[in-house]
């Protein structure tokens, strides 16, 4: 599933990386615990989170995650957006809460998550 499609499903706004909407996503991880994200290894993964500090970008960088969705309408500060641009990541924000956002993506076919 392309990031473009994820943006449509979640009715999300683009905060960074609008030139990278064709990135292909094959799995997703929804968490506010970055250490749990760091235990999750999947290729071409999407991160959904309610956290908006710079360590979200760092965590994604270490994991080779290139697309992040902030849930519950959260918008990070400019510093974080700049860091994401520097790392060529896509940042989206959706009004949906975590549970609904994950559910919408799952029921649209993005069903790969977790370990194994």
């Amino acid at each position, binding site marked *: 599933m392309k990031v473009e499609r994820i943006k449509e499903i979640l009715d999300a706004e683009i905060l960074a990386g609008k030139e990278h909407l064709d990135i292909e996503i094959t799995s997703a991880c929804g968490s506010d615990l970055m250490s749990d994200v*760091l235990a999750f290894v999947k290729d071409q993964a999407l991160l959904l989170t309610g956290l908006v500090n710079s360590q979200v970008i*760092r965590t994604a960088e270490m994991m080779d995650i290139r697309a992040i969705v902030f849930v519950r309408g959260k918008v990070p500060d400019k510093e974080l957006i700049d860091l994401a641009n520097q790392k060529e990541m896509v940042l989206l924000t959706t009004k949906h809460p975590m549970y609904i956002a994950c559910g919408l993506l799952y029921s649209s076919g993005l069903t790969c998550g977790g370990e194994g």
Partner: protein
Amino acid sequence: MMISLHYEVDGQDFALAGEASSNVKKVLKQLGVKPDIIRRVAIAMYEGEMNMVIHANGGIADVEITPSKIVIIMQDTGPGIEDIELAMKEGYSTAPDAIREMGFGAGMGLPNIKKYTDQLQIISEVGKGTRLEMTIFVK
């Protein structure tokens, strides 16, 4: 061939934590190391860096890269780990609430480091500090 990298990890700035791991990741990429090896090194070192920022007011990191392995040595002069076996347990953490609110301190740091490295040696003395030596073999 051996490449040695040295970093000082600032313990005061939570926002900057991860800079050293980010840099190592870049170097390994330039050297053409396989992506899955790079990811394991980056995650293990990043968790180590976060630990030093959260618990030990920073420290130093040395990375040695050879064609056969990558060794990361992280040393701090923090409070030390009282019970290493307990600290290795998933979910056990002594991190303060402020750190938890930022998405860390879930008690996954050392377990994650162990998970992503081939060898892990921890030497720690209460009141003196902690030394982590992580080895990842390049297959």
